[in-house]
């Protein structure tokens, strides 16, 4: 799968680097000074690089934990996110990472201990507020778990802080890390979902929606709080029908009490990001839709967004309570 690992000289001997290198025994290892030498440089071509991404093992020095953008959250007073990794093994056509970076290589920050230290500090500074930490903003939280072991450590770490929530956002069906241990009530395993015919067209290299639903049901059965994330909402001629069918499929045979939260959000991009992503895939029908550009944001437009949002809200209320449903507006 990964044939080349580039390692910053400073973290070559870090235990996480050594573990990763051992897990990818067949990969060639190359030393580098800093990951920025080869990541997100000018003249890089995301689309071509995505055909064979390398793994870069690096050290992060600052900004381990950042405030989540406003409009992103599930009811906590304060929302933060952290990214132990940049980029994702999946290739979802709508993913904002394609427009964020010019490089498709995966960067893994191996100094997990520094993330946990800063999370501890943030928790200590906010003892009177409810807080949610989001993992999986710049990557998928579980897709690379067999290699990185990050989620395992994060869940163990958060088991010591019952009053704050951790969201692991994923499309991965690799949930062994979670299933092999007892669940913790403050870790939400949130699945990104779309109707299966939408996902089969747009979610390249990701597990099918059916398999994701099976995985989330299994986690719920094992006592894990699960999240359902319909973000971005994709517009097409029969969207009402296919989203209704999707909800029916998800909510059959699941203990609704285990559904921690449901959120939905529209497809939106900052203008420059949209320009960059759509130029990577000019033939893709996702980008040939006559989108609306307003106030620097490209979207389906207010009318479609509102219609979809209202419909989803009313459909979801058939299965779960209002207070568990959130509209994401980043």
């Amino acid at each position, binding site marked *: 799968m990964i044939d080349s690992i580039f390692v910053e000289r400073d973290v070559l001997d870090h235990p996480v680097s050594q573990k990763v290198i051992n897990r990818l025994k067949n990969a060639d290892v190359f030393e*580098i000074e800093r990951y920025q030498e080869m990541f997100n440089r000018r003249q890089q071509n995301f689309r071509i690089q995505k055909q064979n991404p390398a793994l870069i093992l690096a050290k992060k020095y600052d900004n381990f934990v950042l405030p989540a953008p406003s409009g992103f959250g599930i009811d906590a007073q304060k929302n933060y996110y952290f990214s132990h990794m940049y980029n994702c093994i999946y290739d979802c056509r709508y993913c904002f990472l394609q427009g964020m970076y010019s490089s498709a290589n995966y960067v893994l920050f191996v100094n997990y201990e520094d993330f946990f230290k800063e999370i501890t500090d943030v928790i200590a500074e906010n003892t009177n507020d409810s807080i949610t930490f989001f993992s999986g903003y710049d990557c998928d939280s579980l897709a690379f778990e067999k290699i990185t072991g990050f989620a395992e450590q994060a869940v163990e770490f958060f088991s010591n802080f019952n009053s704050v929530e951790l969201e692991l956002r994923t499309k991965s069906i690799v949930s062994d890390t979670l299933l092999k241990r007892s669940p913790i009530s403050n870790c939400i395993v949130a699945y990104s979902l779309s109707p299966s015919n939408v996902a089969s067209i747009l979610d390249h290299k990701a597990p099918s929606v059916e398999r994701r639903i099976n995985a989330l049901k299994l986690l719920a059965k094992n006592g894990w709080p699960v999240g359902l994330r319909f973000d971005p909402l994709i517009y097409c001629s029969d969207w009402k029908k296919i989203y209704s069918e999707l909800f029916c499929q998800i909510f059959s045979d699941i203990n609704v009490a285990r559904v921690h939260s449901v959120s939905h959000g529209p497809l939106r991009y900052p203008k420059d990001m949209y320009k960059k992503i759509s130029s990577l895939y000019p033939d893709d029908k996702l980008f*040939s839709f006559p989108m609306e550009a307003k106030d620097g944001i490209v979207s389906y437009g207010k009318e479609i967004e509102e219609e979809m949002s209202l419909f989803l809200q009313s459909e979801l209320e058939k299965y779960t309570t209002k207070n568990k449903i959130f509209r994401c507006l980043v």
Partner: protein
Amino acid sequence: MIELPTRPSFDLKVCWVIALEPEARPIIDELDLRRYANKLNFPVYFNPENGHALVISGIGPAKAAAAATCLKMLLNVESYVGWINLGIAGFYSQPIGKLYQAIKVYDTAGKKSYFPGVRLSKILKCQTLHTVSQPEMAYLETVLFDMEASGFCEMAPTFSCNELVFVLKIVSDTPDHPVRLVSKETISQLIYQNMEKLKEIILVIEKLVKEEKKRLFISEEVFRYFDTFHFTQSNRHRFLQAYRKWKSAFPSRKLTSTLAGGNSASELISSLENELLIASKNWKLS
């Protein structure tokens, strides 16, 4: 010798930058490249039928950069074209004749690293390469040594993109077989003996080039409208954007039928946008 058309009408796919004539000769023969008569400092060869062009740079990174630039300017090379620097290299160990892709190129003089090319690891092994200013005699590091690649890597990605720039090196000298024993004939021989693998690599690169060309392609029918109507720079851009979306939504439709009634750039753009808007009511993702 053949004459270069005033406006290149051939479909260039790959540009080769090679330091020495004995390194270039097997490629010139294999790809049936013909010498282009010019008065430039760098000998240029090309074959308009298969879309390959080659320049012989001479030794050193500056010459490699200059030769690549010369080829780019001379043939007006498009941004989807692949670039290959092929040559011999020193290595700390045997076997002589082994072909590597250099995926990290370190310029020892400038202390700068480059990471060219999408890795072709299914076909050949990858290695680090140091570009040095004098032939390497000590081979103290476990890397390849050459004298051109860093200059090539500095320039070629600006003509195309980093992922379409490839550095391929064949081991010619090692501590057991120092560089002074490498003859011109041996150099050509080393390239010839890797020809099958090189042909495999060429096929992969040509495929990447084809995909990138398709991504950047602007149909001739668009240019006909640019020639016929007055477009401001901004309208030109809007028309192109609208056209790309429209073509993706209606691949079989012809511009002439959609734009039959248009009398100005703005009207043409509106016509395309309106068709998309009408189609959006019943939008299909594939």
